[in-house]
C-alpha cells in the first residue's frame, strides 16, 4: 500500500537550460529550474528554482563535474535505478537522500565506475564512467558505508597501501592529524573502534587529494564531536573547490552540508533543489503553542499557511494563557514524506 500514488508519478523533469543570471561579488550564481511532482499532489507539479552560491563557475565544461543522463540499472527483473538525470557542479555538495533500496548505492556505483549503466550515460570529471573509469578513479575519493579496511594492517599501512595504488608518497601523519588519528597510527585497523575506523576510512578517501569525493554515510557511527570534525573537513574540501557527492540517511546532516539535495525513491529522483527551497516550497511551517490549563499544559500546532491560523493565533494571544510560542521550520524529512509518502528510515 505504501506509496501507491508514487508509482504513477512521471519522472520529474530537469530543465538544464533554465539558467538565470544573477551576479554577486562578480560571480554569476547558478540557478536551475526543476519541476517537482509530489507523490500526493502530482496533478499540480511544483516548480522551484535554486541558486547555489558555492557552485564555482568558469569557462568551459569543467564546471560540471557530474553529468548523469537517463542512468538506468536493473538487477534481474528489479529496476534499481530508473532513467535518472542530474548534474553536479564544481564546488557543490550534493546530498543524495533516499530510503534503503531506493537506488542510492546503485547510482553511486555507476558514477564511480563499479557498475556499467545499462541505459543512459554519465560523465564524471569529463570522463565517461563506462569507458574511462580508471581516469576518474585517479582523481576520485570514496568513503564507503561498510567498514572495508584491511584489519591486520596498521592505520599507517592501510593508508600507505592506498597511497601506493595512486603512485603517491604522502605525509601520513599530516593526513591523520586532520581526522585526529595520529595517536593510533601504529594500531591495527581491527583494534580500532567503529568510530575510529570510520575516521580512517574518511582519511583514506582524501589520500589522493581528490577533485570529487563520494561519501556514503561519512559520519555514521561517530560521536557528535567527531562527526562535527568530519563535517568541517567536508566543508573545507568544498571551499577548496572539491565536489562532494554525499549519500546519507541523516536529514540534519544533509541539511547542514548540502548545497543541493536530491531525493531518490524507487529508482527515480523525485526532487532536486537546495534544502531551503525544498523546505519552503514543500514543507509545512508552523507555530507550536504551549497553553497553560487547569490540568497542566496543552500543546497546539498551527500551520502558517492555513487560512484559519491568523484568527486562531489572535484568539490564543488574547487568552493570555500561553506558556511558550515557537515557530517551527519544515524539515527535509517532512519534505521527503510529502514527496514520496514514505519515511526516509523505517518505511511508510
Amino acid at each position, binding site marked *: 500500500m505504501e506509496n501507491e500514488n508514487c508509482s504513477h508519478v512521471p519522472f520529474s523533469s530537469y530543465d538544464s537550460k533554465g539558467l538565470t543570471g544573477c551576479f554577486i561579488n562578480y560571480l554569476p550564481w547558478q540557478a536551475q529550474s526543476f519541476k517537482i511532482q509530489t507523490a500526493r499532489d502530482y496533478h499540480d507539479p511544483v516548480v522551484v528554482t535554486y541558486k547555489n552560491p558555492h557552485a564555482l563557475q568558469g569557462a568551459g565544461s569543467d564546471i560540471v563535474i557530474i553529468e548523469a543522463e537517463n542512468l538506468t540499472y536493473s538487477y534481474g527483473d528489479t529496476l534499481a535505478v530508473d532513467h535518472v538525470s542530474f548534474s553536479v557542479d564544481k564546488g557543490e555538495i550534493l546530498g543524495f537522500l533516499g530510503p534503503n533500496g531506493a537506488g542510492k548505492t546503485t547510482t553511486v556505483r555507476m558514477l564511480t565506475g*563499479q557498475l556499467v549503466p545499462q541505459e543512459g550515460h554519465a560523465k564524471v570529471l569529463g570522463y565517461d564512467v563506462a569507458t574511462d573509469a580508471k581516469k576518474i578513479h585517479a582523481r576520485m575519493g570514496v568513503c564507503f558505508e561498510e567498514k572495508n579496511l*584491511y584489519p591486520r594492517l596498521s592505520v599507517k599501512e592501510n593508508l600507505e597501501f592506498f597511497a*601506493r595504488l595512486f603512485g603517491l608518497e604522502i605525509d601520513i601523519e599530516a593526513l591523520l592529524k586532520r581526522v585526529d588519528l595520529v595517536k593510533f597510527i601504529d594500531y591495527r585497523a581491527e583494534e580500532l573502534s567503529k568510530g575510529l575506523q570510520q575516521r580512517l576510512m574518511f582519511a583514506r578517501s582524501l589520500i589522493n587529494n581528490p577533485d570529487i569525493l563520494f561519501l556514503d554515510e561519512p559520519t555514521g557511527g561517530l560521536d557528535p564531536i567527531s562527526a562535527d570534525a568530519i563535517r568541517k573537513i567536508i566543508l573545507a574540501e568544498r571551499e577548496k573547490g572539491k565536489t562532494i557527492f554525499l549519500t546519507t540517511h541523516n536529514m540534519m546532516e544533509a541539511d547542514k552540508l548540502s548545497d543541493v539535495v536530491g531525493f531518490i525513491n524507487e529508482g527515480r529522483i523525485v526532487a532536486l533543489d537546495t534544502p531551503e527551497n525544498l523546505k519552503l516550497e514543500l514543507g509545512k511551517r508552523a507555530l507550536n503553542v504551549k497553553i497553560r490549563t487547569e490540568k497542566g499544559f496543552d500543546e497546539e500546532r498551527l500551520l502558517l499557511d492555513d487560512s484559519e491560523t491568523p484568527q486562531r493565533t489572535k484568539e490564543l494571544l488574547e487568552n493570555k494563557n500561553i506558556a511558550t510560542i515557537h515557530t517551527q521550520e519544515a524539515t527535509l524529512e517532512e519534505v521527503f514524506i510529502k514527496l514520496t509518502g514514505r519515511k526516509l528510515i523505517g518505511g511508510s
Partner: protein
Amino acid sequence: MNQSCIKAIARKDAIQAVRNRLVLLALLSGILFSAVYYILPSTVEETFTLAIYGDSQLFGDISDLEEEGIEVGFFSSEEEVKNAVGGGDYLVGVVYPEDLTSQLRSGQKPHITLYFKSDQPESVRTAIEYLMQLSIEYFVSGEEPLIIEEEILGEDMAGRHIPLREQSIPMYVLMALIMEMWTISTLIVEESAAGTLRAVLVTPASPSDVIMAKGLVGISYSLVVAFAILILTWSIRGNLPVLFLGILLGGVMAVSLGLFLGSLTENIVGSYVYTSLPMLIFLLPGLLIFIPDVSLSVVKFIPTYYMVNAFDQILNYGAGLAEVWKDFLLIAVCDVILFILGIYALRRRYS
C-alpha cells in the same frame, strides 16, 4: 596492467597472509608435516630372511641360498622358528619333519609347515610355497628341474632401492603447493568478504592487477615453502633447474586453482568447504606412495599425478628434462586451462 599497483597489492597480500594465523598455520603445517620424513625408514631391507627347523640333511643345500641374498637362520625347535618370525626377525619360517629324507625316499608326501609374518602379501606366500616344492624336487632328483635365465628390464635397482622416506618427498612438495591453493583462495575470499576489494577497485588498480598480484604472492609462497621442505629434509638434489621449473609449474597450478575456488564464494567458511574436497583429490597421487599395493589408474586423471611423478623422477632417480618433459607438458597444459578458468571466474566476480 599497472606495475606499481601490482607491487603494492602483492606487498600488502604478503603481509596480510603472514599475519593471518590460519594461513600462517597452513604454511607452517606444510613444513612441519615434512617432519614425518624423519620417522620413515631410511633404508630398504633387500635381504629375504628365512628361519628353518627340521631334517639336518637339507641344511647344507639350502644354505647355498645365502649367496643369492637370502639369509637363512637355523633353529632347534619349531617354537623358536615361530618366535623368530612372530618377533619380526625373519620374514618366513619353514618347519620340515625330522625324518624328511626318509619320508621322501619311501615315496611319502612329507608335511611342511610355513610361518609368515602377518604383513606378508599373498604373492610372497604363494612364491615361497612354489620355492619349497622346487627345492624338494631338486633335493630328490639331484638335478636342477629348470633352466632359468635372468634378464633385468630397465635400470637394475638391486641393492639401491629408494627408501620410503625419500619416496615421500614429492608428497611434501605437493602438499606445500596444495596449501598455496588454499592460501590464495582465502586471500581472495577475505578481500571480497571484507569489502576491501571494492575500495581497491575505485583506485587506479584494475581487477587484472589484483589477480596478478595475488598470483605472484601465491607462486612466491609456493616456491619458498617447497624449497624450505626440500632443505629441511636434505633433499636438494638432482637437476636443480628442472626441479625449480617443476615447482614453478606446480605453483602456477595451485594458484590458478586458488583463483578459481576463491571466486566461488564470498565468505571464509564457504571457502574452506569449497577448497577441502579439491585439496583431498589433488593430494591423492602423493598419498598413494604410502600404499604401494593400491593401484588406482584413476589417479592418472588427476593433474598432480604428473607433478608427483616428475618430482619423484627428478629427486630420486636424477631425471632431467628429457625424462620428465611429458609430465611438465601435461602440467603446463593444465596450468593454462586452470589459469584461464580462474581469471574468467574472478573477472566475472569482480566486474
